[in-house]
């Protein structure tokens, strides 16, 4: 019987955050795919507040919100730690994780909106990239925390992978390698980590799914 269950919905970046954390620590788990347009009674029971994925169930205990889940995993299974041990370094890491959490929804908005709303989201995304380039990746670092991948890198996954796919089918051009050289290096480094490389959602499949979602959302807005 699986001690650990993860409720997710493909291709949610928040769910992938948890998948990578579990794989980086070598923790076995059972994955249950949720259809978000038809949420299971179990999901609604497990996350009645937000009704969202991911939800982690560990020995019957429920944990919601991806970063809360990641911190929980990091505490129970301390191998391959995802946060620095030094309190101040950890506070800095948590600052960037919060920044990533606060700004990542604008990446989703790029495909969920059009017109002025989309332009606002694009501006927010661009400014986010500027902040990361100018403040978070200063110094010759492979990853946000130094030589090893940690929770900050995982938190910025939408920038590394989802943004490019969304730019592709919306025709937006926000990230340009020559404008964001440090970020560009980081993206290459992040996607080269074996656990990440082997567990990234397929870009063609993602395009199809997110494009369809976009069409449905925009159609329901105008009706």
């Amino acid at each position, binding site marked *: 019987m699986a001690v650990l269950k993860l409720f997710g919905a493909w291709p949610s970046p928040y769910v992938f955050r948890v998948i990578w954390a579990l794989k980086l620590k070598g923790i076995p788990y059972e994955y249950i795919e949720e259809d978000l347009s038809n949420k299971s009674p179990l999901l609604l029971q497990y996350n009645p*507040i937000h009704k969202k994925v991911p939800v982690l169930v560990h020995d019957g205990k429920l*944990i919601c*919100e991806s970063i809360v889940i990641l911190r*929980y995993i990091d505490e*129970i299974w301390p191998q391959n730690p995802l946060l620095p041990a030094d*309190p*101040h370094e950890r*506070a800095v890491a948590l600052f960037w994780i919060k920044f990533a959490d606060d700004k990542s929804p604008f990446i989703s908005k790029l495909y969920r909106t059009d017109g002025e709303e989309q332009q606002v989201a694009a501006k927010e995304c661009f400014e986010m990239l500027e902040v990361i380039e100018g*403040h978070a990746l200063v110094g010759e670092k492979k990853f946000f925390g130094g030589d090893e991948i940690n929770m900050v890198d995982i938190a910025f996954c939408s920038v590394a992978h989802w943004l490019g796919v969304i730019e592709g089918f919306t025709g937006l051009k926000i990230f340009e390698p020559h404008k964001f050289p440090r970020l560009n290096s980081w993206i290459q480094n992040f996607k080269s980590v074996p656990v990440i490389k082997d567990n990234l959602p397929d870009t063609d499949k993602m395009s199809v799914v997110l494009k369809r979602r976009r069409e449905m959302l925009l159609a329901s807005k105008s009706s």
Partner: protein
Amino acid sequence: MAEEVVLLDFWPSPFGMRSRIALAEKGIKYEHKEEDLRNKSALLLQMNPVHKKIPVLIHNGKPVCESLIQVQYIDEVWHDKAPLLPSDPYQKATARFWADYVDKKIYEVGGRVWKTKGEKQATAKKELIETLKLLEKELGDKPYFGGESLGYVDVAFIPFYSWFYALEKCGNFSIEAECPKLIAWAKRCMQKESVAKSLPDQQKVYDFILEMKKHFGIE
């Protein structure tokens, strides 16, 4: 080595209040620097270049930004007194979830109560009460969200109590009538010196909100 602790703050900020409470709970001596947000100090801009916001906790010259991160940092560094987060990982996760919920909901929804009128305000009031009722349910019969003593969620949430009077006046409603247990919890927290000396007078907050409304042209 002498510990040097500075807090860059703004008196009505519920976020600043969180750090004030945490520092008081731990009995930490610190220098309190009041910021004029229309004329931010060079120190603030240097210590929080990304957001340029208060509060900023500066410990031996190193900045910690974001109030909940400050509370966690204070709890970790001064861990031998008045622990705010539980030691059990699952209870810790639950506390983080609810503090995150307070962060996502109260400030934004509360803001809409005093910034809007008519239909929009009615919606905001309804949402606020729903949010508060959910928190009241989570509190249950416990004296504090942290159990027998003040904890992380209490520190995250209690500052907003200093804004309740202002919200009630602006929205013409009573929070106590809808959430009596929550108000009882708030009054219990206010009996603690660390909380009482960290929260501003509710009338003062209301006067401040009225000034803000005038400034933003909100009737």
